[in-house]
């Protein structure tokens, strides 16, 4: 299918299925029940899942294939966001030109930064990319405030020129981003019994792009170009001896990866027209590294899973407060209730960072290949139950 081997086609179909039915999958609990706290099927979070999925897929093209660990990848996300918002301000509220400019601008910056940084390898490369990103963050937050909005971020205003399109809506408000008249924020609810599922235009737009991005990533992974990148990872010296210059290949991977990040940034701005400098801070770059490793570096689907996991924790766990906790355990006798709440409380709400840290440690200690390895182990365990002599049930193939 589409030039893919059966295994990859299956994987793509799984991703398509997951993204298209996400509103159902992410809302497993009936509205209003105590467990509804864990529902993640609301537009903003679903959009974030796929956008950070795209970001992580792109990062993985660089890190997973070539082994070059960029510690400043968030810079391209930021550039993408700023470009997109400027496009909304100056040209039109249509998301297509905004996203295109986001990709072009981040591609250009990636070309420049990659050209310089790829002169070094290993940790020296990581520090170079980190240095570029930190400089961009620092300048965007302070002296570049006229271009970037600084602390308060770049936002739309009522007096934006906007060549194609009105500065204000008829009601005197700022128009919202859309695709040829379809507003990104539009959604409709489907209520089945006490379940409510939300279908959002913006989400499906992002999801389609994720599928395209994922497809492209599979093609890159399986192409001769992808082969070459893997050769760079396993032994660059040997590659040099064969008379090949690896630099153009890594640079191409770096630029592609940067454009993925720019695409993610452009999408972020399209869903929510604001761009802030914090998007480029080193912790944001660190986050995508964590997503990729947590999910499984070098695997196709791992980064998407890792992105989903971190964003879920950030948005769901952080919102549980002691009041909600008390209501969950209200069926217990008072003393026991308070005791259990006291034990659980440090890990939720304001303590969600602690939970995140513990999960990082557990995953990396027990599942060196990330969540994907966890899935593989479960699959293997299930298969062993059925037949004895099947090959190891790998759903995906790590790069090495």
């Amino acid at each position, binding site marked *: 299918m589409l030039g893919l081997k059966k295994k990859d086609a299956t994987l793509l179909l799984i991703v398509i299925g997951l993204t298209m039915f996400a509103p159902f999958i992410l809302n497993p609990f009936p509205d209003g029940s105590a467990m509804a706290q864990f529902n993640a099927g609301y537009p903003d979070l679903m959009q974030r899942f796929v956008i950070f999925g795209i970001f992580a897929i792109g990062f993985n093209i660089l890190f997973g294939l070539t082994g070059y660990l960029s510690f400043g990848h968030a810079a391209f996300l930021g550039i993408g966001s700023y470009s997109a918002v400027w496009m909304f301000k100056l040209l039109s509220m249509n998301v297509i030109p905004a996203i295109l400019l986001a990709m072009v601008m981040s591609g250009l910056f990636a070309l420049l930064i990659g050209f310089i940084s790829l002169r070094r390898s290993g940790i020296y490369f990581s520090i170079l990319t980190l240095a570029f990103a930190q400089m961009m963050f620092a300048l965007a937050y302070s002296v570049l405030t006229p271009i970037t909005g600084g602390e308060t971020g770049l936002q739309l205003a009522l007096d934006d020129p906007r060549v194609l399109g009105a500065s204000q809506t008829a009601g005197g408000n700022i128009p919202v981003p859309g695709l040829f008249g379809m507003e990104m924020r539009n959604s409709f609810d489907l*209520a089945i019994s006490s379940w*409510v599922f939300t279908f959002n235009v913006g989400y499906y737009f992002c999801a389609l792009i994720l599928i395209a991005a994922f497809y492209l990533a599979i093609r890159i992974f399986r192409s001769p170009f992808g082969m070459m990148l893997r050769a760079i990872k396993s032994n660059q010296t040997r590659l040099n001896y064969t008379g090949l210059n690896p630099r153009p290949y890594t640079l191409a991977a770096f630029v592609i990866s940067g454009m993925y990040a720019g695409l993610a940034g452009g999408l972020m701005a399209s869903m929510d027209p604001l761009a802030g400098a914090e998007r480029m801070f080193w912790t944001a770059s660190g986050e995508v590294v964590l997503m990729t490793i947590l999910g499984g570096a070098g695997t196709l689907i791992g980064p998407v899973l890792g992105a989903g996991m971190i964003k879920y924790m950030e948005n769901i766990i952080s919102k549980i407060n002691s009041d909600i906790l008390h209501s969950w355990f209200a069926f217990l006798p008072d003393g026991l209730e308070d005791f259990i709440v006291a034990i659980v409380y440090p890990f939720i709400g304001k303590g969600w960072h602690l939970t995140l840290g513990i999960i990082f440690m557990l995953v990396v200690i027990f599942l060196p290949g990330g969540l994907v390895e966890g899935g593989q182990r479960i699959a293997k365990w299930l298969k062993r139950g059925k037949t004895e002599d099947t090959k190891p049930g790998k759903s995906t193939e790590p790069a090495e």
Partner: protein
Amino acid sequence: MSKTNLTRRGVLKSGAVAGAGVALPTIFTASSAAAYTNEPTGSSVTLGFNVPQTGPYADEGADELRAYELAVEHLNGGGDGGMMNTFSSKALKGNGILGKKVEYVTGDTQTKSDAARASAKSMIEKDGAVMITGGSSSGVAVAVQALCQEAGVIFMAGLTHSNDTTGKDKRANGFRHFFNSYMSGAALAPILAANYGTDRKAYHLTADYNWGYTTEEAVKTSTEAMGWETVAAVRTPLTQTDFSSYIAPVLQSGADVLVLNHYGGNMVNSLTNAVQFGLRDKLVNNKNFEIVVPLYSRLMARGAGANVKGIYGSTNWHWSLQDEGTKAFVKSFGTKYGFPPSQAAHTTYVQALLYADACERAGTFNPCGVAEALEGFEFDGMGNGKTLYRAEDHQCFKDVLVVRGKENPTSEFDLLEIVEVTPVDQVTYDASIFGGDLGTCNPGA
């Protein structure tokens, strides 16, 4: 605990049943069926408290959250009623808002615009919050305010001091009770002139971002009007932790006053460093060298410890005020939590009450109705004396406190003493001077 919460869950359930149309397998409801975003249909109304729970301002966020919980308790008729008894408007009856029980959801802004918006969006989209409030920095306030405008809910700003929030970035759905940089400058300058004389040379260290710029500008303008001279203004990076290399050259410049336009961790460190360098023991131009911190908060004062002693600054409110509103609030907060509330707690508590009161007076939760009720609203008994919510920019105008670090504090909460209550007329400005456009209120949906 268990008893109230069992009913809480029951309320949630019945609310959902009413909203979702049970037993019908497939119903498509376009979200525009409601008159405005998140119109409460059940017996309860949900407010969203969006405060920093992680990151450097987590303690301030925790104090805001305490105040919100107290406000919810009072609105629902619990506790001693706090400021509801002293509030000049008597629309609130202690039976929730418009007869609906007040529920709340909480979120973590992380003091990052992106995270704050994500958290606010989840409250609006998932939890059906009809109002968002909180925050501890101007960057977050401006970002969330714009979001609320777009989504069609009311935003009641928490701690945000930049002129921009109700200046160039003001929005029709956003309201701020807290004071701003301009007011700090206007209130401080006369006190500084009275204590340090009109012939002073000031050296500014300014946090290199929007809030820093507006504060530097405000203090500069108002002190220069008193006859002070500004020797230099140096920008310091947000991520700076050690300010020695910025502070050491101050004496060489011939300045005799150092103004630290810093907030939070920056301010704690820069003030500590300045005192460390012994600046306050120096005699320059035959005058004692002085340090000024335009925006004080008690938490920062605590972080800087003994270094704040004798240093002037301004604050929105302080628990040692002696009016009835303050006393009532301090009493109910202090009784519940065991220590006096901070100014962040005060402003958020007042914002929650003001919102509830506006809903009662408007007879609706519709953001446009609420905004109309708040615009031009004059009230008293909330701790700052007579206060006006100005219609033109949704900024509260009230007295501003000039404070000084106390020499002999009796506890870790008793670090500031009030020097002067600057009357509101002195800090009022024309609404148009900061530009920006309020736009029109957006009810969403």
